[in-house]
């Protein structure tokens, strides 16, 4: 049967079988240390671009949307593209932590924490855009159904209101999911805090967690339920984002395939972003044996799969547009491929469909440089996918008289850069102060951590009463 052995994946999830204590050590120690110059350099860079982005947003709020390239007919442009892009990034986290958890994919344990953190940061980044995108951002609270003295209500038929609910729910749930996962680790950090300040903070955050089994019991259940809830949630979020476009009547937006297509695209880009950052972090913090090549390979497989789904969506979309036989529908997609923005479409297809195909080869899946390049290209491609959908559909719609071209301004680019700054600043702070890998889950998945007793032998034990100590 040894030939069968290589079919059954026998490669361990953690290399070098470290002791549980070592795992804690490796994860926790970087937090105690004073960060090196590279960290500071990265922090300064991202921090500066974040500040620039934020100040540009402020300036826009002061002067008006006119500072951007938006016009008629392209009323939505860069900010919406960025919004969808970042929301998409935010989907990998929950997918890894929830869906793979439900599928009992143990390899997720090492990367789940990190991915969840990136989800939260990505959603935070994304959430800035709808607000600043408003013509009168100082009235943003009007979009919430707040009872008010004017007896006005919001329009629950509007996809933007759905968006509001979806994103706030998604953010809340991901945050709780992430924090729940953190509590035991925080307890561990509490016990090995370098300074007293650390200790107090970790103590407060860990709610006095001690690891009694009666706590674990409900804890695991809660984790399972949250995973079960987040799975449809994560699908719903990008579905609703896709509704923003698909409910309209604009050709190129109004396509029924958009929901699944957007969800797949979101997972696609999310995984790519997680890969990009993970590859760097794992190198910087020397976690190669906790986040092994096998983790990365599995992620690359998901990238390939989602890339194929996205490619399928492109094809079906184009075909259906032709199949419809409607001249306007056909023109929109012809214009998408051959019109003035053909290069965006070409870039999108190249990065999202063609490039990831290298992952058919195990060699590419398991070597760092190719996968790094691919992951970055996928990020680029997914950004352009949103650009193609938003801009090329709008700039030539029904009445040729109102056709126009869209040219982004420097402010647009500045804000885009700023969003990356915001995201990476948060990531850097996170890896500095919180365990980037779930010690608890990695420990729990170690071979020596299991009970060797066979399940059948422990059925029907007398129930123990709860201790109060």
């Amino acid at each position, binding site marked *: 049967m040894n030939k069968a052995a290589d079919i059954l994946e026998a490669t361990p999830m953690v290399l070098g079988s470290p002791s549980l204590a070592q795992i804690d050590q490796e994860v926790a120690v970087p937090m105690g240390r004073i960060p090196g110059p590279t960290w500071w350099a990265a922090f300064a860079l991202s921090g500066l671009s974040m500040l620039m982005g934020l100040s540009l947003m402020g300036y826009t709020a002061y002067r008006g949307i006119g500072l951007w390239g938006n016009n008629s007919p392209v009323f939505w442009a860069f900010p919406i593209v960025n919004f969808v892009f970042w929301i998409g990034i935010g989907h990998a986290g929950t997918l890894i932590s929830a869906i793979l958890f439900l599928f009992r994919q143990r390899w997720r344990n090492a990367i789940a924490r990190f991915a969840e953190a990136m989800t939260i940061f990505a959603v935070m980044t994304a959430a800035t855009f709808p607000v600043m995108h408003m013509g009168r951002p100082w009235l943003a609270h009007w979009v919430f159904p707040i009872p008010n003295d004017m007896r006005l209500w919001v329009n629950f038929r509007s996809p933007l209101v759905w968006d509001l609910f979806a994103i706030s729910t998604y953010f809340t749930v991901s945050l709780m999911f992430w924090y729940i996962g953190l509590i035991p680790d925080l307890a561990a950090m509490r016990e090995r805090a370098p300074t007293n300040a650390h200790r107090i903070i970790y103590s407060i955050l860990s*709610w006095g967690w001690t690891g009694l089994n009666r706590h674990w019991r409900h804890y695991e259940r809660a984790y399972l339920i949250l995973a079960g809830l987040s799975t449809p949630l994560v699908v719903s979020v990008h579905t609703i984002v896709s509704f923003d476009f698909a409910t309209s009547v604009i050709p190129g937006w109004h396509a029924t395939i958009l929901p699944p297509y957007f969800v797949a695209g979101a997972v696609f880009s999310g995984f790519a972003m997680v890969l990009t950052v993970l590859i760097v972090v794992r190198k910087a913090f020397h976690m190669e044996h906790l986040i092994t090549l096998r983790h990365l390979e599995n992620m690359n497989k998901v990238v390939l799969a989602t890339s194929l789904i996205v490619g399928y969506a492109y094809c079906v979309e184009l075909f259906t547009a032709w199949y419809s036989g409607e001249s306007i529908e056909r023109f929109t997609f012809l214009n998408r491929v051959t019109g003035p923005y053909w290069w965006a479409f070409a870039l999108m297809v190249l990065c999202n469909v063609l490039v990831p195909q290298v992952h058919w080869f195990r060699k590419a899946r398991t070597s760092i440089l190719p996968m790094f390049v691919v992951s970055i290209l996928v990020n680029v491609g997914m950004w352009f996918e949103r650009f193609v959908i938003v801009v090329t559909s709008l700039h030539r719609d029904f009445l040729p008289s109102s056709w126009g071209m869209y040219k982004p301004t420097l402010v647009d680019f500045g804000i885009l850069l700023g969003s990356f700054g915001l995201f990476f600043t948060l990531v850097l702070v996170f890896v500095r102060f919180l365990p980037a890998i779930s010690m608890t889950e990695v420990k729990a998945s170690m071979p020596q951590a299991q009970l060797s007793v066979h399940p059948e032998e422990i059925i029907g034990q007398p129930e123990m009463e709860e201790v109060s100590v």
Partner: protein
Amino acid sequence: MSEKEPVGAVVLFKTPDDLVAGIRRAQDRGFTRLDSVSPYPIHKMDEVLGKGPSRLGYVAAIAGLAGTTLAKTAQWWVSAVDYPLNIGGNPLFSYPAFIPVTFELMVLFSSLATVIGMLVVFNRLPQYGSSLLKSKFIRDLTCDKYGLVLDAADPKFSPDTTRAIFDGLETLGFDLLYRERPSPFFSQRILSVPFLVLLAGVALLCSSATRLVFRYGGAVPPFNFMKAQEKLNPQHESNAFPDKTGMRPAVPGTVARGLLPYPYASDAEAAGRDLVNPAPVTTSSLVRGRDRYAIFCQPCHGREADARGTLTAAFPKPPTLHSSKARGWMDGRIYAVLTSGQNAMPSYASQINREDRWLIIHYLRALQRAHNAEERDLK
């Protein structure tokens, strides 16, 4: 309680299997109040301790149901009852459009309930004062060792002899647990006064900040609510003109359509000569005439035009309009009186428009005729 009294004990083990062996031993000795401590959830440990699955699922389900109901009813009430607008010709209660929000609220409610239920209700956290935290083993227990916790409330428990029962097992140590008086903030109960005060403080801060921002921040230019209008509103003054009146009077000498200048200001008799009543005598015209009369004339001249008005005490008494003189006047002559006034009577030109003046005259004629009716009128 006294500081000396131990609330329990913890036995330290190296591997999960040792832990299970320890639990078995304690169970054999009749211990019923015990629990395991581990740095991670040990698979199947619930079965070892004879615990069934957690009931958290019901909490989640109920909360989810609540969220669904709330969302559906709220959206129905807002869109169909309290704020019923025709939006794009859609039905007021467009159920397909209300499904997304319903779903989101379902998820939000049930996950909030799950987390709060798990932490606060089921696990009764935070336990900043837990005696385990003071144990010397706690560092190991959160890292790579396993503990068996025995409760002092257990009848079999005694601080001195309990240690002995684990002889012959792979134990790493034994430690008695003492509850120390918890610090006021790291309290056992989440409902401790300082914590609540802190909570209230934060809430107050946030709400007042929000209020300030929304109340004043929004009104600072350029963040306006379009209260400031660049246009010149009616009845407002304008600095463009020397006399500051925004609404301009007509340039002298202009003649507006339908408003020929009234030439008889000085010569009422001429008006009596030249002018004829252009208004037809119809029921509706008489009715309007009566109304105008009631508004403008009646206070002085009285309902019957017999000078028995309500204001007679305050004002010089007008003559009755049933005098032969008044009845002899041509319509134009009366029109002249209405237009430019006479004796104590001021001009009503600015209050009663031209047609109405003529209608009033018609009504006045009717009054006069009714007041001194003749034989033929009764036919």
